[in-house]
């Protein structure tokens, strides 16, 4: 199970059967450069593998005014 925090929302969501960052982004309906994907202080490219127990932060990059 992967735990994901999206944006400034402090309530994390969990995902099963997610193997890569690209799968996670697709699941969240985000394109490759719509958001930063961060694990343990490291930026991840879409091809990186995710492991059960990972905590990932998704930080959308589009300015909102």
């Amino acid at each position, binding site marked *: 199970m992967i735990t994901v925090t999206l944006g400034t929302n402090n309530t994390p969501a969990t995902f099963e059967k997610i193997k890569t960052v690209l799968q996670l982004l697709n699941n969240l309906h985000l394109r490759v*450069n719509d958001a930063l994907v961060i694990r343990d202080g490291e930026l991840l490219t879409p*091809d990186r593998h995710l492991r059960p127990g990972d905590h990932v932060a998704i930080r959308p990059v*589009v300015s*909102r*005014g």
Partner: protein
Amino acid sequence: MKCKRCGETAAVKLPSHHAGFCPDCFELFFKRQVETAIRRHAMIAPGEKVLVAVSGGKDSLALMRVLSDLGHDVAGLHVHLGIPDSSDPVCARTEAYCRENGFALHVLRMAELGLAIPKVKDAVHRPICAVCGKIKRHYFNRFAYENGYAALATGHNLDDETARLFANVLRWDEAYLGGQGPSLPAEGRFVRKIKPLYRLTEFETAAYCFLKGIDHWKAACPYSGGASFTSHKRLLADLEYTSPGQKTAFYEAFLAKGRQHFRGEGNDAGPVLQPCARCGYPSSAEVCGVCRIRSLVEKAGA
């Protein structure tokens, strides 16, 4: 994915450049994009003082950082808008960042100038984002002019610029198309306006901030209700996704081939600028828009 330059694990994938970069090589890429923008558009001459318009968001803080790292003489100006629960923490965060990094920062408080945005919002029956933008542009330029800065730098990025270009093309707005570009020359009491980040996307500035540890403000303005051009940005992002590099191609081709055809358009029919009777800054009417807004606020509060 491996870094295109050094072969280490990549932290950033950039489909538009057919590349991935590790943190160190991405920083080099980022700085080179800014250097290229400055050089190609003669944005900053050696030794010139540059004022950076600093909102506290990712683009303006990234701009401050990279211009300083490239050796330019920069100072920031933050406009405190007087919006409850927003302006104070944004200003505090911006001041803290600049203090910790040794950047000079000036703060203009709109409440002290009779233009606190909540009062403006109540007094002016127009979209507040447009009015707020007009006030900020006026004071950024005015501060730069009165304090001897050669250029005013803003954090507009490739996404901002292509969305604006797309909107101008949809309307075939000849005057705006003729005036759009990453560098506008100084004229009279207008200082030179420059956009050194215009070759970099929002993703790239966000990644740069993360990798450089820049703690920028992330919440939206409570009055914004969604930034302008958001739908255009979404359309262009779809295009970029299917054809990486299209945003850069669209904008650079406009600069190289399109803009020249609109130069001078609208100037003949447009109003002649004259000094505002109250503040002395260029205005298309006897009294400039900002002084008129201030009058409306005073009238509403009387």
